């Protein structure tokens, strides 16, 4: 592949590898590509070829008394959890980066652990702990649980940004007479902002996709979108699910582009800084 003197064997291996890669990538993307056209079907079954094109399932989504409220619930919970997780996570990442303190490795492992502990254990734990406090009757319980699940993403992305952050910049700013606060606001924050923002996007995505905690804890008044989709698959499987899925895919695509842009921006800032 790389040199002109490849043998037949190498060429066969190369072609084989390329075909395998193509097949695996197709496997990865195919389900998504198949569900999107279905959402525009004019029929009511999960069949190809489509009987015709229509927007009836989107109409159903927006006129249903279940789907739209669940989208609203997801947005309320997701936004609140993101704000909390981003605030707490960014501060903690700054603290860990700033100086070594005793048992730091252990503390960091703890901060990341919500990402590793199986969600069902988190869900059952908060369900038992929050129920007697009355937290399961409104949004708050769900928001707190989703904040927990989102925090590791913020800590990791902000730490990653900080790890390539040049500490001499701070010393330079301070030697020029800037106060600590000014240094943070004018130097540190702008440089780590892309990391903070992509951490926030991750945290939002984690909440927006979370179904296990919602399944166990949310009452009929806090049904989130994934919870509604889960009920939909189990109960009334209709193409409205395909419409909801398509919109979710569009949202993830958007979030993904935002994160990609933020990461490139942060790399550029570092190079120029």
């Amino acid at each position, binding site marked *: *592949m790389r*040199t002109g003197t490849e*043998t037949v064997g190498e060429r066969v291996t190369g072609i084989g*590898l390329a075909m*395998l*890669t193509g097949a*695996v*990538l197709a*496997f*990865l993307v195919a*389900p*998504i590509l198949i*569900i999107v056209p279905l959402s525009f079907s004019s029929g009511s*079954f*999960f069949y190809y070829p489509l009987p015709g094109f229509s927007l009836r399932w989107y109409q159903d989504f927006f006129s249903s008394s279940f789907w739209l409220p669940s989208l609203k619930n997801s947005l309320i919970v997701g936004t609140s959890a993101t704000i909390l997780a981003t605030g*707490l*996570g960014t501060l*903690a990442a700054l*603290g860990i980066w700033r*100086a*070594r*303190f*005793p048992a730091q490795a252990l*503390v960091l492992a703890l*901060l*990341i*652990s*919500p990402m590793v*502990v*199986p969600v*069902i*254990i*988190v*869900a*059952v*734990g908060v*369900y*038992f702990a929050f129920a007697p406090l009355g937290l399961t009757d409104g949004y708050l319980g769900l928001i*707190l649980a989703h*904040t*927990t699940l989102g925090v590791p993403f913020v800590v*990791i*992305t902000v*730490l990653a940004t900080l790890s390539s952050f040049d500490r001499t910049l701070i*010393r330079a700013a301070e030697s020029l007479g800037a106060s600590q606060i000014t240094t943070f606001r004018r130097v540190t924050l702008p440089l780590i902002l892309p990391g903070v923002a992509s951490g926030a996007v*991750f945290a939002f995505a984690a909440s*927006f996709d979370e*179904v*296990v905690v919602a399944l*166990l804890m949310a009452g009929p008044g806090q049904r989130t979108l*994934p919870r509604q*989709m889960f009920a939909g*698959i*189990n109960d009334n499987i209709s193409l409205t699910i395909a419409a909801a*899925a398509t919109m*979710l*895919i569009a949202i*993830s695509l958007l*979030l*993904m582009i935002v994160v990609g842009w933020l990461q490139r921006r942060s790399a550029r800032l570092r190079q120029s800084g």
Partner: protein
Amino acid sequence: MLRGAAAALHAALAGADDDAGDLRRALRRSRRREQLRAAALVLPLFLFLAACFVVPIGAMLSRGVIDTDITRILPAVTAALKNWDGRDLPAESAYAALIADIRTAREAGTLASAATRLNYDVPGFRTLLFSAGRQLPAELNGSARDALIGIDPKWGERETWAAIRRAGGPATDFYLLGALDLRRDADGSVVGGPSEQRVFRDVLGRTLWISAMVTLMCVILGYPVAYVISAQPPGRAGVLLFLVLLPFWTSLLVRTVAWVVLLQKEGVLNSLFLSLGIVNEPLKMIFNRFAVYVAMVHVLLPFMVLPLYSVMRSIPPSYVRAASSLGARPFTAFWRVYMPQTLPGIGAGCLMVFIQALGYYITPALVGGADDQMISYFIAFYASRTVNWGMAAALSIMLLTATLALYAVYNRLIGVERMRLG
């Protein structure tokens, strides 16, 4: 930040007569201040996680080893059974104590909790307690023992009373043993549970097996893909990586729904196969192990490809070329030179995939059959479909122990701060 230290240093150096002790002390002081500040920044999140994560999970897990319902609800009989030798039936006083307890508990509406707990140990205990509660005469004339045995001969069996004593708490190994299909008999020795109720060893084994198979398939599929992508020029590699990242970002439920649509009997794949004449009748591809593997590999594959890719990208192609020019055959060059350098990536990917697979719940629940459910399913089942919280906790203890052990390995080998996200 470092300004404090710099100022201290400056002051120390400026004064010619300052000795080294002062300098060291000032430095230490300023370092201590820095540490405190750093810790203060971490503190809010630390406290938040303690309150909303560590304490709730700890409290939940403790239900797997703490057992106080029965002493609380049936205090007299548990006290009376303390001195019971367990060889013969308990004394008349224990029977009388139980009757008094049942009456109080019935009145207080707590009998149900006691019945539920005892029913886990001896199926049918619920009925035993409640029919005693319903049928006991208001006034006892004669022996309490005769009255109870008259209602149900089970009250004349040692095992019935042993169950009450076993549930006397405060600590218990009942649930942990139960999670391994073991129980204690009337004499207190550990024996296997009744054969028709042995499921958890199967479930634990199945959970490990499915996770291992999924990890293996992810390596087999992910390795060549990561290799091919890492060998592409940056532009094309970006496009291919996008194809890996898109499913990674797509909602887990959306992908699971998509597999339901694809695999079901009259779904997309079957109609394709039928129209191409590959099969004559629809294949059964959903609600079985096959569907679980397909969907889980699909969801977890990006977690394998991404760490492999980032390791492979950093391996200079000159190494393999050097090996080839020294006469190594392509396979030898790959196996002896290239592959060893990708081991950190393989390790990271495998641990990530395996750890996540262990805790899978939604995907097997939606595409698997009844005998494809993993341990998480049973935790959810015991927590929300029955009130057997002790069992849910015991199973959680097992799952969490396995997960945290692997997490520690990951942390040791790779470092948590190096976890890759998209």
